[in-house]
């Protein structure tokens, strides 16, 4: 088997068994990049020379028996909102167009410690604000299955890179669905872990109470292996949680017999396209055949998640993005009369339209006179949404539904109407509000060959259960495959 036909775990095994090497695996990835990157634009920054040096260093450590982990030698791509020491980190924004961090994000560091080889930084919506990777200041990314369509967002470059074989594993971040939705659009496995499971140290913050880093992978086993390396307590992130159930791979084969799975009736109503509904329900049947009990139920409050989310996320964004002021790093506007004008001009020229829209909305809902009516109201609704999930998990082990209401839209069609675009987050967003884990697994294609994703949502810290169910489904489904040739 050639490296490109392997999953990350298979590749790691082949490297350990000396059937291939880390530099060879890297070359295989480079050759996919050479063939596809011009059309797809998955990356903002590619560091071929650095990656080759890292691959050679990793190979030496593997040969010396110092690196023995399942992912040692496997090429890795990282979303461009995760800091990488010495490597440009732009957040797909003009305002960070020249920013080279002095330190590496903890999540990236942990994967590098496991022997993964960083090759570059993937495209995304500017500051992770968007659902299509079209708000990037560095141009859009194409969907590998049909480059006229978007890859989803905001981790669109990461999802497309995995789907196109331009890497084996990619890191993304998920504030309202930004891992699961592009995973669904690109036909890869994407997981948002429970809030607090992966250190956010070195992640350029968008909505701090919602942001969580997670993997995009070729299959569920890869996802479990990467998660095992990622999840750890970190004192550098005050919201980091101590967990001792991180042997995610061990539980994979245990099956779903006896598992109780609920499908929210309010997810399967109008607004959900038929091309998505059908494969998701077929996937549910597969899990039923494997011994799970599957039944519909009423989750409730679904339509209130989007307005609550956009209030809270915009509020946190307006506060988090105050640090971009042209003083310590990044872009600074020229010819300014005084400090205050420099701040305003820098930010106005440095931020794109969608980012400014959310900063303004956030500034408004936090401003005196509106704070109670908007921000606190949204936090109260968030408490109700969390309670609705608690109630659901009293009866069910997990919730099954779509990851997004449609398959990937055509490029150039989404940004004109922001609210319409926000509505596409309906199945992913409440998971972030409640801090829950969620995983998207490919479960079919629409008439144009674009992938459809099934989403499984679990109670806090139930990643093992989710991975078990996802693995049981995936084993029955058979390989989904990566995209050989870009259409």
């Amino acid at each position, binding site marked *: 088997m050639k490296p490109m036909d392997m999953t990350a775990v298979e590749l790691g095994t082949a490297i350990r068994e000396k059937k291939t090497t880390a530099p060879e695996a890297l070359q295989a990835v480079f050759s996919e990049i050479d063939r596809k990157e011009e059309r797809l634009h998955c990356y903002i920054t590619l560091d071929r020379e650095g990656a080759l040096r890292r691959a050679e260093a990793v190979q030496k450590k593997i040969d010396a028996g110092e690196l023995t982990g399942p992912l040692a030698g496997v090429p890795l791509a990282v979303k461009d909102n995760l800091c990488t020491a010495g490597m440009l980190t732009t957040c797909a924004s003009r305002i960070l167009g020249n920013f080279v961090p002095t330190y590496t994000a903890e999540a990236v560091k942990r994967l590098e410690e496991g022997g993964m080889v960083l090759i570059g930084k993937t495209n995304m919506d500017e500051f992770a604000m968007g659902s299509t990777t079209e708000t990037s200041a560095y141009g859009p990314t194409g969907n590998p299955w049909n480059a006229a369509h978007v890859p989803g967002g905001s981790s669109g470059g990461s999802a497309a890179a995995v789907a196109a074989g331009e890497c084996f594993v990619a890191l993304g971040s998920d504030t309202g669905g930004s891992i699961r939705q592009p995973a669904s659009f690109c036909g890869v496995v994407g997981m948002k872990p429970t809030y607090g499971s992966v250190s956010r140290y070195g992640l350029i913050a968008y909505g701090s109470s919602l942001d969580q880093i997670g993997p995009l992978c070729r299959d569920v086993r890869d996802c479990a292996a990467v998660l095992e390396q990622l999840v750890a307590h970190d004192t550098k992130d005050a919201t980091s949680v101590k967990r001792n159930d991180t042997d995610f791979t061990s539980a994979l084969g245990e099956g779903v017999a006896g598992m109780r799975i609920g499908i929210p009736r309010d997810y399967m109503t109008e607004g959900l396209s038929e091309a998505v509904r059908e494969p998701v329900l077929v996937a549910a049947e597969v899990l039923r055949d494997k011994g799970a009990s599957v039944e519909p139920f009423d989750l409730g409050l679904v339509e209130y998640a989007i307005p609550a989310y956009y209030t809270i996320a915009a509020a946190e964004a307006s506060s988090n993005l105050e640090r971009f002021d042209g003083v310590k790093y990044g872009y600074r506007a020229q010819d300014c009369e005084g400090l205050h004008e420099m701040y305003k001009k820098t930010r106005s020229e440095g931020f794109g339209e969608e980012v400014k829209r959310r900063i303004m909305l956030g*500034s408004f809902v936090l401003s005196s006179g509106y704070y109670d009516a908007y921000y606190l109201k949204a936090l109260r609704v968030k408490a109700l949404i969390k309670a609705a999930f608690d109630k659901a998990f009293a009866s069910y082990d997990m919730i099954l539904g779509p990851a997004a209401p449609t398959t990937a839209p055509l490029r150039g069609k989404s940004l004109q109407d922001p609210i319409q675009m926000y509505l596409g987050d309906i199945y992913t967003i409440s998971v972030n509000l409640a801090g829950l884990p969620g995983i998207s697994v490919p479960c079919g294609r629409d008439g144009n060959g674009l992938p459809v994703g099934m989403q499984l949502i679990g109670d806090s810290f139930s990643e093992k259960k989710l991975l078990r169910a996802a693995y049981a489904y995936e084993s029955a489904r058979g390989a989904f495959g990566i995209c050989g040739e870009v259409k």
Partner: protein
Amino acid sequence: MAANRITDETIEYIGILAKLALSDAEKEQAKKDMGRMLDYIDKLNELDTEGVEPMSHVSALENVFREDMVTNGDMREALLANAPGEKDGMYTVPRTFV
């Protein structure tokens, strides 16, 4: 209608809070966008949240304390290298009073 709450003065005020300089066209667009978004967010008022505590954080964690100790090394030069303006180991900015 929330749109009515977004007057020219409101947009000016938000521009100050958000530290953004907007052109007249951008201000008009912002007024429209924000009005529409607030109309949509007003949907939350359909829910009775009387007596519901605002939930700022889902995490069960209480305050997390640590010793106030410096653990990273001296990165002064590296950090300053990212600055748009630097002089004698300090950040430079345009004059504060014009």
